[in-house]
């Protein structure tokens, strides 16, 4: 059993236990006994099945090769593994860290079995013009992303040899700055229509990458600053005083307000708590956790105390029971 490394007192222990039992009772009714471990037999109820990931054939019997949950879709039977590395699908939004700048490409660590590749040609140039990439562009690659930069991108395709190609052909993709990255288990993130969230009340951008990398950062309005620059260029040369005022503006922009920083930390801590408890991470649950901490007027650091873990577990149990009743 995966235990929480928390120092709980006796009452907290009992409460947490109770909340977890409630969660178990809610979910056990929906899918009884579909959990398998390595080398378990998977019962087959019909002929002509298709065996999917996580299964193998042994003398006519279907056995699991990973621990997880058996999923049956029409004739396809596969095992959805829980704690495993990220399995990419085309179109997923992922966040990665640049670990290498190579010829015409960046290598990104995205919690996959290999490093993902972001080609220079599959990314919008900062000037926004569509053209062939020249040798000069290649030399200037470090001005776009350097090592250890965080990049948000989309999965383009996975090659036959298992390597992964990314693309960033949109203004919403690109370098991430002024915020923090959290890593959670990828099975806690569900694929959805929307992975970019702008939380207006906090002034924060939240990107929930499918690979379990979550970005919480200050909201940046439009990333087409370059367009504005172009307009300036076309006008008459800027005078000295103008430049000075621009510098001040830029300084203002680069400095994040204290309140925003606190909001970033609060949301990040909410995600930490949820991932430690192993709950599904969605925008609604994160906001609910943040609201819970706000309503209790907890300090940001107190969110990582054991009491808050218990409270979150209890409220999550309540929430799931309620949503179950509605259905």
């Amino acid at each position, binding site marked *: 059993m995966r235990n929480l490394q928390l120092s709980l007192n006796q009452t907290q222990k009992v409460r947490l236990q109770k909340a*977890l039992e409630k969660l178990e009772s809610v*979910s056990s009714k929906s899918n009884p006994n579909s959990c398998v471990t*390595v*080398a378990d037999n998977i019962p087959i109820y019909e002929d002509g099945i298709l065996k999917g990931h996580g299964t193998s054939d042994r003398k006519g019997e279907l056995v699991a*090769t990973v621990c997880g949950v058996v999923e049956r879709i029409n004739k396809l039977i596969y095992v959805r593994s*829980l*704690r495993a590395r990220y399995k990419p699908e085309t179109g997923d939004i992922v966040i990665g860290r640049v670990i290498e700048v190579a010829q015409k490409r960046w290598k990104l660590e995205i919690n996959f079995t290999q490093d993902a590749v972001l080609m220079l040609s599959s990314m919008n140039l900062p000037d926004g013009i569509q053209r062939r990439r020249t040798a000069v562009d290649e030399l200037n690659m470090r001005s776009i992303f350097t090592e250890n930069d965080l990049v948000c991108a989309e999965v383009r395709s996975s090659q036959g040899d298992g390597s992964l190609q990314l693309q960033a052909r949109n203004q919403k993709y690109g370098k991430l700055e002024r915020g923090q990255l959290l890593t959670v288990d990828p*099975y806690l993130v569900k694929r959805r229509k929307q992975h970019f969230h702008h939380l207006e009340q906090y002034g924060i951008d939240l990107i929930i990458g499918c690979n379990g990398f979550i970005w919480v950062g200050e909201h940046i309005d439009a990333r087409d600053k370059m367009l504005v620059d172009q307009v300036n260029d076309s006008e008459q040369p800027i005078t000295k005083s103008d430049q000075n005022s621009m510098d001040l503006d830029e300084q203002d922009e680069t400095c994040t307000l204290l309140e925003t920083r606190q909001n970033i930390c609060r949301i990040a801590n909410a995600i930490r708590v949820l991932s430690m*408890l*192993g709950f599904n991470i969605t925008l609604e649950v994160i906001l609910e956790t943040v609201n819970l901490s706000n309503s209790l007027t907890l300090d940001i650091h107190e969110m990582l105390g054991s009491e808050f873990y218990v409270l979150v577990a209890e409220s999550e149990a309540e929430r799931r029971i309620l949503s179950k009743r509605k259905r």
Partner: protein
Amino acid sequence: MEYVSPEGLRLDGRRPTEMRQLRAEIGAVAKADGSAVFEMGNTKVIAAVYGPREVQNWSQQMSDQALVRCEYSMANFSTGDRMRKPKGDRRSTEISLVIRQTMEACILTHLLPRSQIDIFVQVLQADGGTRSACINAATLALADAGIPMRDLVTSCSSGCLNRTPLLDLNYVEDSAGGPDVTVGILPTLDKVTLLQMDAKLPTDAFEDVMQLAIEGCKAIANYIKEVLQENTKQLECRRGL
């Protein structure tokens, strides 16, 4: 010395075919992809699995299968006398190799081409049978990391002292100089992946000792399955819909 008393009890009070108490815990290392602590009586081992990940040494990359690496070490405080051992001594190199080969036999490496899996095992308390405990811990950690495997590998040791086959030797029995057979099996496939023996053993006695070790392996397999099942169930129900 008398290792089995006339009443049929061993030095630590077990029956000859009795195993020490097992305890397993999944998820001991937070940053690892998979990890486990496995205890057999006083022997305690921690295992961590990293990967499948990008191959670190480019020249070792294989285009058709994964590279499996293993590192075994003993904590300085694991034995009675606190010895500072050099990192690459012969004993630990040998055990690393044994564990690597055993685990490689069960991992479906062809599903993870151009990647590398690192297994780190460390003995926290040594009381005989560290080899088997390491293999059991590594199996649990690999299963926790979600790495596809043919079967679980479990391992158990047995020996023969005072002409009695003994299951799961502890340190005192191990250092008595009698034969010590370490067996690793794939329990549902009924295949042997590891068989090691120190000292000599008559052929007829070997059959009994080996059989006893296999029984032990199966008992451990049942326990490990239970732990994994419980863990999977818990993760799934906590995750919710």
